[in-house]
């Protein structure tokens, strides 16, 4: 079983957004692996291990891919330290990319790597576009299971619990398929691979942190670099950012002394009840 996990680096979302020359100012920004992509790596690991015995399934492989500037190799290395086996870094400037360019490159990598499944985050927390997984599935003609909150392995297929408007939808997809993961995929029992005992509860909040051993091992894991042209992609985005503005701050509110005053203000001042 081979799983391909595309990951994106994003500016740390806890930093305050600043504008310079009409765009987000990223000088001096600190970068992290997009949280949802980190969860995708975690999901791939949970699918390919016995979590209780802390042992990877023999013959399994997780390949991580990023398309981004040279220094994005650092975030890619982080996912190797979590437990991915090897990495592909397609070097490109951010302004050479849009979701269609990214999808073209990923389709080329998938044609060469032939993974059983592609798992990625449902969206990147910088652009919040939520496009690449679905577009990739469409281009490949593969089935898709987006916004996965749970995954259960059923033979060579996956039953994916998807959080939709008004409840949870269960969708079965055969392999190969594209799966995009949502927040709750990292819950204690969200991934059931038939190897890890169903009773086993993954601990912690979110994805596993790289261990010291993992960080040391990651330094020796293979990372190949490539160019857009290697996959027939051109650095010509059709989606361009014209400019960015910050929303006006909300006017300062007021602390209200007690509930009767609040209800009076809601009724007479705000006129909302």
């Amino acid at each position, binding site marked *: 079983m081979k799983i391909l996990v595309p990951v994106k680096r994003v500016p740390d*979302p806890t930093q*305050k*957004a600043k504008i310079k020359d009409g765009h*987000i100012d990223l000088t001096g920004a600190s970068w992290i692996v997009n949280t949802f992509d980190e969860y995708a790596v975690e999901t791939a690991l949970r699918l390919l291990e016995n979590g209780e015995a802390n042992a990877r399934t023999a013959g399994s492989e997780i390949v991580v891919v990023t398309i981004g500037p040279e220094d994005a190799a650092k975030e890619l290395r982080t996912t190797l330290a979590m437990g991915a086996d090897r990495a592909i870094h397609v070097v490109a400037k951010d302004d050479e990319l849009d979701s269609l360019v990214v*999808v073209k490159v990923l389709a080329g990598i998938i044609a060469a790597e032939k993974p059983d499944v592609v798992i990625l985050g449902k*969206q990147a927390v*910088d*652009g*919040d*576009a*939520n*496009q690449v*997984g*679905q*577009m*990739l*599935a*469409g281009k490949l003609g593969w089935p*898709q*299971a987006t*916004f996965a*909150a749970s995954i259960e392995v059923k033979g060579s297929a996956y*039953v994916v619990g*998807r959080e*939709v*408007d*008004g*409840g*949870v*939808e*269960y*969708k*079965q997809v*055969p392999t190969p398929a594209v799966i995009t993961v*949502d927040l*709750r995929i990292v819950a204690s029992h969200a991934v059931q691979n038939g190897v890890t005992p169903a009773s086993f509860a993954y601990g912690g909040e979110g994805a596993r942190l790289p261990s010291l051993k993992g960080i040391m091992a990651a330094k020796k894991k293979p990372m190949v670099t490539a160019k857009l042209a290697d996959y027939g992609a051109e650095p010509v985005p*059709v*989606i*361009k*950012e*014209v*400019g*960015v*503005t*910050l*929303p006006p701050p*909300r*006017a300062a*509110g*007021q*602390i*209200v002394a007690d*509930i*009767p005053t*609040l*209800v009076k203000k*809601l009724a007479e001042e*705000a006129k*909302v*009840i």
Partner: protein
Amino acid sequence: MSNVLAFCEFADGALRTSALSNLAFARAAAQAHGGDVVILLVGHGAQAASAAAAKFAPKVVVVDDPKLEHYLAETYAPILADQAKANGAAVVTATATAIGKDVMPRVAALLDAGMASDIAKLGDAKNRFVRPILAGNAYSTVEITTPIICVTARQSEFEPAPELGSAGAVTTATAGAIDAKGAEFVKLDAQKSDRPDLGDAKVVVSGGRGMKNGENFKVLEELADLLGAAMGASRAATDAGMVPADWQVGQTGKIVAPNLYFAVAISGAIQHLAGMKGSKTIVAINKNKDEPIFQVADYGIVQEWEKAVPELISEIKKLKSSR
């Protein structure tokens, strides 16, 4: 090629409220392109909603097939792409619902179209769109240069479109080859509720980590029912399993903009604020006056919810009975 194909969700023989927001955007886009809005209804039972849909656009195309009983991106996306071409669409649009977000990028891939997701408004040119990025902390204007453009519109940013004066023409189209690529709908575990949809509600009552457990949400539900409100929650509360996951308001949950939003025992993480700071009036109830929620609240009450919420309920009841 100047029309706007608006994929609209329906239920029980009528358009969903969320679809009306899509139509508001579609009308603006059609005007910018000098074309018409064409409503596309897809699914088993679509025909039954066509008369209601025809009140909103000059043309309605219906693709109704028993094999489309359950929505699947794999079967719906090719229909949207085919109908985009058949109807001379410059723009294909849907509301950014769970279905809209799932299907539209797949349609974009089939059409080699650039896509603008979850937009807040049409920009200063017909191929420019304004959309929130960085959890709503900034607005980006994007320009898309493909002949066909795919768009999803954020429901809370568009007022529902009103009916037109005269009914449009309804035509039917065939689904073509329906190929689910092996994908199957298994089941839907629905959260049944008599309350309004979180996305449409005029009032939302949300609870956070400070509610401590699901049982404690009952008092918030009492408040919600008094006001005809939808229930919401912070990620901390849904992650802890206190309430259903689809109550989550935030960057990665629902984006809401009601007239009145109650944030009870919610600290106000960026993630949560991204989902509700478009609300017209925000009330925060929290025992800690330093929580960031008070920076976005119009009215703050610094009290424990255990005391404040029951009193709020009784005061609102008093107000209602005095009217």
